[in-house]
């Protein structure tokens, strides 16, 4: 398999502190109201306990990206060297087709630039051998950068409950599921 960087979301470790989302905002200073990385609490139907479980999600840098396929002006590219899906805002004409089409709601409309934008996995940082800002900031190591080509563990899940199953786009993000808490009875 070719190199494909991906986010590993370890929901067993995630405490829902939003540091990843804040690190992204601090780094890129998006316009008010635009969020590239979001922390989603899992519904009670999925994780029915008072201590909550979370998925921290941004763009999934899919193997067959819907955004790239539908963009009429080729404003998206998928980097051959690591599979990162990059949006080139200078090419974008702001038609919103990627926003409508990405099943994960990753691209957002920037009303000031009048163009779309999304997480680019901090590809400039990757090129400088640094981790993405969100990964670096996570205090519990719940968010990690992995290469799917070298992934040898076996407990990662691609489509956990709470995450749209979209085989056609084949999202790269992998999850470690939150464990159920131990019930201690006296």
């Amino acid at each position, binding site marked *: 398999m070719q190199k494909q960087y991906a986010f590993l979301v370890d929901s067993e470790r995630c405490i829902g502190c939003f540091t990843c989302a804040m690190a992204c905002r601090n780094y890129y200073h998006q316009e008010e109201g635009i969020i590239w990385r979001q922390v989603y609490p899992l519904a009670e139907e999925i994780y029915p306990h008072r201590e909550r479980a979370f998925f921290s999600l941004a763009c999934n840098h899919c193997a067959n990206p819907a955004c790239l396929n*539908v963009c009429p002006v080729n404003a998206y590219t998928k980097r051959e060297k690591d599979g990162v899906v990059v949006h080139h805002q200078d090419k974008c*004409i702001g038609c919103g087709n990627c926003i409508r089409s990405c099943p994960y*709601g990753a691209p957002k409309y920037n009303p000031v630039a009048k163009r779309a934008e999304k997480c680019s996995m901090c590809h400039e940082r990757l090129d400088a051998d640094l981790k993405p800002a969100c990964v670096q900031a996570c205090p519990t190591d719940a968010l990690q950068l992995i290469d799917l080509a070298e992934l040898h563990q076996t407990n990662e899940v691609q489509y956990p409950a709470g995450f*749209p199953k979209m085989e056609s786009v084949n999202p790269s993000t992998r999850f470690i599921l939150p464990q159920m808490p131990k019930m201690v009875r006296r």
Partner: protein
Amino acid sequence: MQSLELPLVLFTVFSQAAIGLTLMRAIRVSAGGPSGDAQREWRVIAGLMVVGMIGSLFHLGHPLGAPRAVTHLGSAWLSREVLFAGLFTGVAVIAALALIKENTTALVWIAAILGLGVITSAGMTYAPPALPAINNALPTMFFLTSAVILGAGFGSWFAGKERQPLMTRIFTTALVVGLVLNLIAPCVWISGGTVMHMTGKAWFASGFYWTHLAVLIACLAVLWKNKTIPTWLPVLALLGELAGRAGFFADTIHTATNIGGLY
């Protein structure tokens, strides 16, 4: 409720009216005999397309970049839609400006095929995986039905007396198909996965949806009573299609709405 997408509502409905008129013209021309005032009809077709295309530009953050929208024909249905719409408009403008002989069939058939290309590619554009309720052939069917309803309705303005019964029959059939499609689709969605179910509920709770249905039923009632298409009826049908399309864009739920919930 998501965005109303007014420019897209105008573009899709106006272009479908133009394409429907072309299809009806093709049918009348092929059926032989007088097919109505060709040039006046072509002017209306070209006018609808030009107004629709200009309207669609308001949907873009950067309208001046619109010509670049045909650069991803390899995989983007939106690029193909823009290309087909451009070619269709070009043919319609040529037909409207040139003095076309009453029974020139080649041009009308070329335009009809390009028009079907616009409808198919638009149908594919608005059927992304992120909108599970319409990630199928439904958008194409909705668009084709609108085209035939509006084409037959407005076509009655241009068809001669002897072709009125034909236009009335097609108009009636398309209205029935539109009504059935719009009744069945949300009913089926209700029994689908979470986001489809949410879409079904959003459509049933939508004023746009009920306005569209009411107009389709009212048109059928008028036809049942009149047996022909009164001049004003296509205008009512147009308003119904505009409302239905606004609902199509505003009330169809995106998968991202439910992240963290069960699918």
